[in-house]
């Protein structure tokens, strides 16, 4: 973190422009001197901040002081709040502010105040800032592709200012980089269901199912695409049960005899909703039986629960519960 971009980190008490200000220490009892330089700078900066905040001084030097305070501790929301008041009063260049925020985000991107402030800035800049902002967020996501704040902010930018056109490609790119990235799957769902250009969930379903099935076959132990698949059939469980692509991906994964927990779970869900399996399904499930499991239940749903209780032992109680609530039709 570079707190020295304006003033070289020189103590404020030695700078001419602060000579007229008396620093105001935190009022919570005795404040012994802290023997480390960084802490000293931090404490001094905050003491000066309290003084100008109390005097409500909305000046260029106040803006510089908030910048210094933010560099030292970006979590202090009162400093951010005051900075907005100063920016407004000075009618400051908000493009520059965006660049400043980007530098902070590069080193400390998990901070609510920063992102809230950023939204405030972008709101004022309006649609002109859209392309730049979407690009800047990409840069932050390239450092941490699951940054919750950055995603939340990105969704807001898309809804407030637009820029949906390239978003599905962007999700695609991120998933190519890491197919286990649940944030990118979530964003994909967000785009597919909300983009004004794609025609909605039903129009996108067939191509999305194809994409998801491929992702599953490449990594069957990835919970994200399995959940995404369910999401594609939101409120339409019948279509899920009747789509041969769904049961077939389950079968393919089970036949590999590896990483089949989610495939069995999906097959169990299908069976519970009326899926009629051909004998191939039963054979594949029977083939999973290892020597140390008890003989499999003749009923397929029961057999699946028994296997899962065994191989997914952390969640054994869940699978026992599933077994106990199997609908009569499935048993």
């Amino acid at each position: 973190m570079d707190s020295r971009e304006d003033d070289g980190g020189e103590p404020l008490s030695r700078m001419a422009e602060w000579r007229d200000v008396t620093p105001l220490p935190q009022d919570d009892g005795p404040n012994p001197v802290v023997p480390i330089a960084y802490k000293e700078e931090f404490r001094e900066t905050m003491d000066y901040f309290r003084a100008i905040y109390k005097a409500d001084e909305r000046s260029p030097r106040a803006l510089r002081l908030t910048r210094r305070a933010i560099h030292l501790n970006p979590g202090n929301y009162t400093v951010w709040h005051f900075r907005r008041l100063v920016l407004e009063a000075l009618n400051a260049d908000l493009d520059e502010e965006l660049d400043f925020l980007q530098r902070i985000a590069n080193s400390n991107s998990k901070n609510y105040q920063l992102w809230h402030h950023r939204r405030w800035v972008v709101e004022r800049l309006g649609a002109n800032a859209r392309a730049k902002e979407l690009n800047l967020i990409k840069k932050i996501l390239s450092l941490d592709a699951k940054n919750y704040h950055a995603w939340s902010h990105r969704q807001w930018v898309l809804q407030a200012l637009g820029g949906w056109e390239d978003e599905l490609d962007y999700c695609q790119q991120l998933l190519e980089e890491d197919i286990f990235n649940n944030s990118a799957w979530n964003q994909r769902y967000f785009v597919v269901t909300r983009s004004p250009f794609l025609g909605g969930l039903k129009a996108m379903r067939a191509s999305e199912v194809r994409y998801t099935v491929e992702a599953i076959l490449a990594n069957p132990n990835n919970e994200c695409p399995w959940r995404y698949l369910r999401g594609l059939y939101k409120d339409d469980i019948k279509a899920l049960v009747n789509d041969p692509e769904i049961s077939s991906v389950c079968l393919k994964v089970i036949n590999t005899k590896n990483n089949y927990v989610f495939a069995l779970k999906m097959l169990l869900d299908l069976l519970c909703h009326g899926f009629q399996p051909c004998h191939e399904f039963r054979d594949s499930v029977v083939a999973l039986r290892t020597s140390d499991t008890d003989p499999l239940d003749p009923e397929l749903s029961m057999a699946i629960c028994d296997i899962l209780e065994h191989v997914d032992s952390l969640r054994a109680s869940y699978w026992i519960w599933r077994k106990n609530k199997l609908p009569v039709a499935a048993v």
Partner: protein
Amino acid sequence: MAELAVDKHVKYILSVEKNKDSFESVVMDHLRMNGAYWGLTALDLLGKLDSVNVDEVISWILKCQHESGGFSGNIGHDPHILYTLSAVQVLALFNKLDVLDIDKLDITGLQNEDGSFSGDMWGEVDTRFSYIAICCLSILCCLNKINVEKAVSYILSCKNLDGGFGCTPGGESHAGQIFCCVGALALTGSLHYVDKDLLGWWLCERQVKSGGLNGRPEKLPDVCYSWWVLSSLIMIDRVHWIDKEKLVKFILDCQDVENGGISDRPDDAVDVYHTYFGVAGLSLLNYPGLKAIDPAYALPVDVVNRIFFSG
């Protein structure tokens, strides 16, 4: 298996409170109210709340209250709903809610037209603030001051395909946000809107091989999720779906048994935040010797009972 080092943790929490010049406490200066809630609630669960000076704490809390009625994270900072809830919770711990002028506390004004809540005058919206507002008002027995129906419908608009909840509509499911949403729904008698089996399955998938819980798929386990995930599972009555013994072991493995305190993962540095979540998680798991904690109010059960049943 190791045991909970109760005395060490008590000592650690008390030392954090006293040590105002440590680097941690300087940086946490602005959120000291949250720190007070974490430390004091953990102390109460450990049965040692009587080791702090009540009058000192209460007088400091009242100095953090502003004209608007809201509280700030420390003296001289701006009020925010995040700190208002912590202040109200700490007052509840000490049975001092009567020092509050409830009419002065303007939470109603933070509710937006769509039912959501903002955190302060700057208008940041997040389902965290829905929970905080609802929890605060519920503790003060005045939920009728807001439009509960709209608040619930906003939370439900943040429900995802996996049964979980995000910070705003479309936001990714995250265990912390799920706690807030499920907690708010529990406190408003609206849990019937939760798809309990679907969400319960997502939540129990958060348990990883080490026994710890993560907050999202493919993320590392962290002791704080022992609270966010576990309390949510309890509220929707699905906590028996995870392996509790392994989770207890994971939390105990995160203790600093020499100097006290609990960290996010084994062998990391301890802090008061994870110490609270570790102790609270163990309390939810009925660990012997700890007071029971209420999963929705995030306060000891006897404190909640005192609020609602002491008439």
